[in-house]
């Protein structure tokens, strides 16, 4: 690995004394034991006698606690009808095929239900759009069902207000007025049919407008010019050898990221089997994204330079008919252009900017490269992102002429810059109805709020791509049945149609999609119907395309601002889901906030960086804030140094600053939707001319999950020379890997012979020996596994204050390492969970044997035994053990001892309020197979032992051997790129065995390695060396 330097934070990069001190500790804050002791017993140090005194305190505290009133337990007997195979079997999960949709596309899912309640989202292997994995938000969405801030707890007088609404609609119609149904992209032929019914009922007055908070309408407009049809085509990243992304986070947020991640993953893993082939990916971006991190080459480019870049690229690949423009300083596109030209028919260029000219240029480039019909399919158009910016802007400009507004699950007063316009206009309208699950920022101005239902309690048909019909089916009876009504039923009722949602959806299917009852049942089982029409592609018109592109470049002054969707929070519509808030951003590792990301260069220029004046996401420290004045608005945000940002550019995430979304979202971050603007009738998510003034005296606490998760390496120890993580992240380039499969892993042979161990003989694993493999090439850092693990294993949400104190509970984290040029570093992701070491340093320090080794190689926890010494966490070299500092999930109703507990977000909980997990409804999300841990115990990844045991039992009962693939752990099933594999190391036919061992049964020396292997902990998790498809040596010296 040479001298390549890896770093996780600025402190580490600069090797500050504070960092060196803190890296050697497991817990980011000082252990509070001595403080406690000082207060309680006035002792100065914690000797053995004092320890005994404190032990006395603990015992008496426990006695006080147990004398509290015991909470009422609610017992419900099971009624099991063995004659009906579909009836509930206690303890056995049932799975239902359904479909999840949000602003980032549609995913085919299986909903796991236990005792009739949905508890987990899994991928549907027969999915029409996605066959593996899911997004972090899809995983989190199950908690949204049990969100007790949803409307509908009270029974409504439906007939009464339906009559009033219908009267208003009729009177608007009679006077020749106008009613607008406003929605986000629906992709639902069923809802569209209901809207059409409404239109025909009130023929002269109803119109439907759709918009998207983060719009792609320029893609449709550009395609209308290029192809004569306003479509978004299907993209096939799996068919591309060379991929170029221009400000397009197609793995994280753009269009259909899970679908694209699955495709992309297929091209990114070179192996002996595929002739060591991998695609090459260039990314030009203004803000650092996971897509840019996955790319082989990424270049920071300012938003104002995107058009210039695309013109240069068009000319460089041999495009004709456009004038030339100056090249961008510091961005060399010649190599990308050369690779694209050589990969004609196997190239793909995507641009994420909502700008017609940029999209036209992208079309022209793809035409020259022969991408249409190869990597881009215009014959199967996408129905995602149907928002029409022009229609929406026209609506905003003519809101005064609108008499009635029906908001169909959308929130324009929050997620567009026109809050004031909507508020003013809605006050004067005859009829304002919000179909919403809560009184959100827009619904609060509406005369009627009609509570809707969660997708897990609804029927629907979605058609995300032409001909691909995906079924949404309910997996639970409506939780608030009398107080909520499906949107489609509301619309139908106002047409005078009493059809129920189920009947309407079923009738639609039977008329249009399936034949007979059997066809319908089959569609429900499979989760959809494929009616792919196999249309031929559209023909491209180059001259019209180029006629709308000018070579005049946009002017830019001052600092540029990029507004982006973060992977967790997205456009903010699910911001009240605390799993989404506590999900650390893959790049910044920040939770519970948005922030002003500034480049390292800008930080240095403003006196932030540098060894002497260092500050950043320091442990126990805070960051300055900045006031940003742009577009006539002024916003104050905390500042974070983000490596890889374009020069003179700052980035801010949308989706924060909700004011009426529920307790988890409110007060978290700042709303920057007011900064969204428009150009040529398309929403524009960047601005220039910003003025940023830093307030160095401000001390803003940021909840970052990273620095205290720094793995201990020798260099952290006093007196040792830095070794720069060579034992943690291993990387090589494709050229070297082609020469030798051992590339990047050359030292492993030596390490394996270095068999020093302070531990005795390694246990003999007779039965099973579980192991996990993580392919660093497939891993794109999307973080779906993190949330999947949270949900599966009842991992508590601790809130910002606790994250700030380093008390996050995530069993699995994705470490993010930077390396190389600090203005444009390479990024490596490494999922890190308990390594289940067979020589585990944590096990032998436990005084009560609460953590020990199983006969199947699992490092297991007995929570009841754990007395919370935290010695194990202190001794874990991977820093994966988590301590329950407080009773986060009401495990033992010690809530009253959570005295200084702050609520999620930064606010202290109001008097009398408790955490969500103290609410009966929220607790319905808990996995009954997994213990809810109490205060004072350690926990960590168990390799989903509940799934292992379940699969073993099924195999035993079926009198068959356990097959490879029977057990799929939660992180593995949520991974779109199949980066994680799991299985039995004793089974020679298993995938994991073949990752670890060669045909002769000896350790593989090619890509597989273990983290900190030289210490001989014998971890059961293997990592596959990351291979970058770059010409340069990855082991280049740190510049």
């Amino acid at each position, binding site marked *: 690995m040479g001298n390549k330097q890896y770093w996780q934070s600025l402190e580490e990069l600069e090797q500050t004394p504070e960092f060196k001190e803190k890296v050697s500790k497991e817990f980011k804050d000082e252990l509070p034991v001595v403080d406690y002791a000082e207060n309680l017993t006035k002792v100065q140090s914690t000797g053995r006698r004092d320890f005994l005194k404190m032990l006395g305190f603990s015992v008496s505290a426990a006695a006080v606690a147990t004398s509290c009133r015991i909470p009422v337990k609610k017992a419900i007997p099971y009624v099991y009808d063995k004659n009906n195979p579909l009836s509930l079997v206690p303890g056995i999960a049932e799975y239902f095929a359904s479909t999840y949709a949000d602003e980032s596309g549609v995913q085919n899912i299986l909903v796991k239900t236990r005792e009739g309640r949905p508890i987990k989202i899994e991928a549907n292997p027969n999915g029409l759009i996605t066959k593996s994995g899911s997004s972090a938000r899809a995983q989190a969405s199950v908690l949204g069902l049990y969100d007790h801030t949803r409307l509908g707890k009270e029974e409504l007088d439906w007939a009464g207000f339906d009559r009033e609404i219908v009267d208003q609609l009729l009177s608007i119609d009679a006077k020749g007025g106008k009613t607008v149904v406003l929605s986000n992209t629906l992709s639902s032929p069923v809802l569209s049919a209901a809207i059409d019914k409404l239109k025909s009922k009130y023929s002269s007055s109803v119109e439907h407008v759709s918009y998207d908070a983060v719009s792609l309408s320029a893609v449709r407009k550009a395609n209308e010019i290029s192809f004569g049809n306003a479509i978004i085509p299907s993209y096939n990243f799996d068919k591309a050898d060379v991929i170029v992304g221009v400000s397009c986070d197609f793995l994280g947020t753009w269009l259909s990221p899970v679908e694209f991640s699955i495709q992309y993953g297929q091209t990114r893993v070179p192996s002996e089997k595929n002739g060591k082939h991998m695609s090459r990916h260039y990314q030009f971006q203004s803000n650092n994204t996971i897509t840019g991190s996955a790319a082989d080459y990424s270049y920071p480019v300012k938003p104002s330079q995107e058009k210039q870049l695309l013109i240069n690229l068009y000319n460089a690949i041999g495009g004709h008919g456009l004038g030339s423009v100056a090249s961008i300083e510091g961005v060399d596109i010649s190599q990308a252009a050369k690779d694209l030209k050589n990969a004609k028919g196997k190239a793909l260029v995507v641009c994420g900017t909502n700008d017609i000219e940029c999209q036209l240029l992208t079309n022209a480039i793809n035409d020259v490269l022969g991408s249409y019909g190869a990597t881009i399919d215009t014959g199967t158009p996408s129905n995602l992102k149907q928002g029409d910016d022009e229609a929406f802007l026209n609506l905003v400009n003519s809101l005064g002429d609108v008499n009635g507004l029906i908001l169909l699950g959308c929130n324009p007063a929050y997620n567009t810059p026109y809050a004031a316009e909507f508020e003013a206009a809605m006050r004067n309208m005859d009829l304002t109805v919000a179909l919403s699950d809560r009184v959100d920022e827009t619904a609060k101005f509406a005369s009627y709020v009609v509570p809707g239902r969660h997708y897990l309690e609804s029927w629907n048909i979605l058609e995300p791509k032409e001909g691909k019909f995906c079924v949404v089916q309910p997996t639970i009876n409506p939780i608030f049945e009398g107080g909520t009504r499906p949107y489609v039923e509301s619309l139908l009722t106002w047409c005078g149609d009493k059809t129920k949602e189920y009947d309407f959806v079923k009738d639609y299917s039977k008329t249009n999609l399936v034949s007979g009852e059997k066809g319908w049942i089959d569609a429900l089982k499979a989760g959809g119907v494929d009616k792919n029409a196999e249309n031929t592609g559209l023909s491209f018109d180059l001259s019209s395309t180029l006629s709308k592109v000018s070579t005049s470049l946009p002017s830019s002054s001052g600092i540029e601002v990029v507004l982006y969707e973060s992977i967790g929070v997205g456009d903010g519509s699910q911001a009240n889901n605390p799993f989404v808030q506590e999900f650390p951003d893959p790049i910044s590792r920040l939770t519970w906030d948005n922030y002003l990301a500034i480049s390292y260069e800008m930080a240095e220029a403003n006196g932030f960086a540098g060894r002497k004046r260092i500050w950043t996401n320091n442990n126990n420290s805070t960051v300055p804030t900045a006031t940003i004045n742009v577009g006539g608005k002024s916003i104050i945000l905390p500042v974070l140094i983000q490596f890889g940002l374009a020069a003179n550019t700052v980035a801010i995430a949308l989706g924060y600053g909700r004011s009426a979304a529920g307790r988890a979202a409110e007060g978290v971050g700042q709303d920057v939707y007011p900064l969204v603007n428009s150009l040529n009738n398309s929403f524009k998510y960047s601005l220039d001319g910003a003025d940023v003034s830093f307030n160095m005296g401000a001390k803003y606490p940021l909840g970052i999950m990273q620095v205290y998760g720094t793995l201990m390496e020798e260099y952290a120890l006093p007196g040792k020379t830095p070794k720069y993580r060579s034992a943690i992240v291993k990387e090589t380039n494709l050229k070297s890997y082609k020469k030798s499969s051992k590339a990047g892993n050359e030292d492993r042979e030596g390490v394996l012979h270095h068999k020093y161990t302070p531990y005795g003989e390694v246990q003999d694993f*007779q039965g099973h020996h579980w192991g996990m493999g993580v392919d660093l090439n497939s891993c794109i850092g999307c973080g779906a596994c993190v949330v999947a693990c949270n949900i599966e294993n009842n991992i508590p949400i601790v809130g910002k204050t606790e994250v700030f104190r380093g008390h996050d509970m995530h069993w699995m984290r994705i470490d993010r390492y930077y390396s190389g040029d600090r203005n444009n570093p390479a990024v490596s992701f490494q999922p890190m969970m308990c390594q289940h070491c067979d020589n585990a340093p944590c096990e032998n320090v436990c005084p009560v044997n609460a953590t020990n080794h199983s006969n199947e190689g*699992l490092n297991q926890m007995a929570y009841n035994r754990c007395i919370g010494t935290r010695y194990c966490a202190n001794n874990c070299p991977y820093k994966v053990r988590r301590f329950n500092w407080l009773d986060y999930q009401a495990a033992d109703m010690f809530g009253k001892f959570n005295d200084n507990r702050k609520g999620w977000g930064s606010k202290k909980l109001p008097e009398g309020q408790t955490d969500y997990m103290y609410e009966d409804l929220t607790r319905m999300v808990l996995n009954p197979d997994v213990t809810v841990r109490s205060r004072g115990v350690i926990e960590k990844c168990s390799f989903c032992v509940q799934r292992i045991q379940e699969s073993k039992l099924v195999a035993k009962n079926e009198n068959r051997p356990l097959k490879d693939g029977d057990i799929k752990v939660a992180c593995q099933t949520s991974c779109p790129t199949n980066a994680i594999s799991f299985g039995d190391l004793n089974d020679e036919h298993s995938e994991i065995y073949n990752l670890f061992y060669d045909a002769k049964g000896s350790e593989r020396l090619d890509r597989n390695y273990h983290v900190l292997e030289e210490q001989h902990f014998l971890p059961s998790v293997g990592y596959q060396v990351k291979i970058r498809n770059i010409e340069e040596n990855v082991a280049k010296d740190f510049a």
Partner: protein
Amino acid sequence: MGWCVNCHRETNIQFKDSKYYENTFDRYHEEIEAQKRNGVTVKDIGGTECQKCHY
């Protein structure tokens, strides 16, 4: 601890005629073959480890 765990210590599992155990626990199979062992208890296959039942 008496109830469950003691039973796990004493109860033989259906080891021989189970396809599940056919290709695992080779040593136990050999020991049974060589008549060094009468049977395999729940404990022998890890049944007294806490996390075999408590997740």
